């Protein structure tokens, strides 16, 4: 599979997250969940942490299967 996710790649992934973060309350409302501002902040912080953890986990796994070059993300 593909190699590690570089810092440039992480930057792009986080950029893609911004629309979701900004409209997270709208998104939740679509599923009938109404969030207070506090809940919203907790939720999006959690979201970002989850993505960071996922990327780290991915890189650890990719690191064990050698080939961590690729000019890719």
């Amino acid at each position, binding site marked *: *599979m593909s190699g590690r996710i570089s810092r440039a790649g992480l930057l792009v992934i986080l950029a893609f997250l911004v629309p979701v973060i900004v409209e997270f309350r709208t998104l939740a409302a679509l599923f009938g969940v109404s969030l207070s501002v506090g809940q919203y902040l907790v939720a999006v912080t959690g979201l970002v942490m989850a993505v960071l953890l996922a990327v780290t986990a991915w890189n650890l796994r990719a690191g064990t299967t050698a080939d961590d070059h690729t000019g*890719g*993300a």
Partner: protein
Amino acid sequence: MTSEELPGEELFLDRFPDEAQVVRASLWSAFVALGIGALAGIVQALHRVGYVRFIDSADYYTVLTLHGVLLVISFTIFFLVGLFTWAVTRSLDRPVENIRFTWAWYLTMVAGTVLAGVAILGGFVDSIPISADVLFTFYAPLQAHPLFYAGLAVFIIGTWLAGFDWFRSWWIWRSENDGRIPLQTFMVLTSMLMWYIATIGVAISVVFFLLPWSLGIIDQVNPLLTRTLFWYFGHPVVYFWLMPAYLLWYTVLPSISGGRLFSDPLARVVFVLFLILSTPVGIHHQYLDPGIAEGFKFIAMTNTMFLLLPSLLTAFTVVASMEHGARQRGGEGYLSWLGALPWRDPAFTGMALAGLMFAAGGFSGMVNAGMNINYLIHNTLWVPGHFHLTVGTAVALTFMAATYWLLPQLTRRRLYSRTIGLFQVVMWFVGMVLMSNAMHRAGLVGIPRRTAEPQYDGFAFDAGLSSVAELDAQVAIGGTLLFVSVVLFLGNLIISLLEDPMEGTVDRSLPPALSGPEDSPEVLDNLSLWVAIALLLVLLAYSLPIGAIVADGGLFGPGTESYPVVLSWLEVVT
């Protein structure tokens, strides 16, 4: 054959030094406009939301006119003429016929911009009796100083001459070569044909009506007529902004992604569709104008929906080409090939993010285009929200990203910092997500555009899921990020130019398409046929509405001697 196997091309500036100079001059003119335009942008964004007011609210329209005109006329079109000169010269592999003529059209455009710019800036100084606070749409009865209209006319004449320059290169090339029109030249020629057809409208409006009116030669104009002529031009002009971005997505982006264009025939079809379909739709900007029958508006809406086709074809072809590139670079799987794309390269990431935002802009554009839902968002902040995604990002960000790629071959300089470049394009994306999202939302709840001090304090106002304060914050933060992004872009460029020239060459060859021109029907290159069809569609879409507008409102307005004259005559009789 992949791009690695091709010999590194000679740098454009070594092969065509004179042309490279014109291209550089055009791009710099574009970037000066971008810098000033962005400054106006941040000033008005912070003013509207009431955070910082650098200017008097009475000057808001001066700033907004500056912003609109500099960004969507000067920045976009100067970049376009530079890019098109580069594209025609390199794809025909021949110098321009007469470099003095090439400089002449460039200087004509500069002169036009300076005239219009002076007229706009005059609006800041009360003691100078010159102003042009008419916004980039210059609707009557807003009236500008004659310099403004004259400047526009001169600028447009400059672009006509530029088009002639490129056509002439092609005519001579054709007499010496067989075969298909090279793809980039094909794109330039079709764009220019569309531009010639479209600018007739605005030329008539400016030269026969608005300029004589501001000079006092005629007393009044028919505002509906000049508006309709403006939008006859105003819709195709949005494609004029987009077509250079498409040229880059089709011919440069695949190579940056490490692959080749998926299909040359599809690219030609798309440009032909733009040529024939982009003019007969302008009335979709006038859904709320009284005086145009609903039926004509309905026809414009139908034509507009057909225009989705070339954009969807583009989305398909460009993504397919990127996927091809990613797989050349070792990408695999259904989606994981995305990871194999060169995300570290600001030229790639900028164009990819621009394309993505264009998709979002396409969706909000469909709302604008629908006659019924347009009523909900007409003249609200939704509309600037929409076009900051299209021209303000799909086009502007693509141009900035492409500049990173063009820089070495035009200046023999490497980009000073790729990291800053990458940061800059991502920052634009994030800033625009915030600003444009908030603008769309604000428009949905009816917050108007073109307003210096929208007031929502002191009474209950339902701003949907959020609050006006939250939307304002998004606009302010987003606008600031965008402004900083422009500063980083310009700073990075300037520092690059101060560095020493690099040695050797860089590979900027553009590999041929996977499915080449030999696969596309000859008829696609029959430009006269497409022009004839385009003109026919224009005639069908516009002759009746314009006839009705003139019949109802008079060529030069309804006349000043109406009821009172008749009444006094009646009084005399009785």
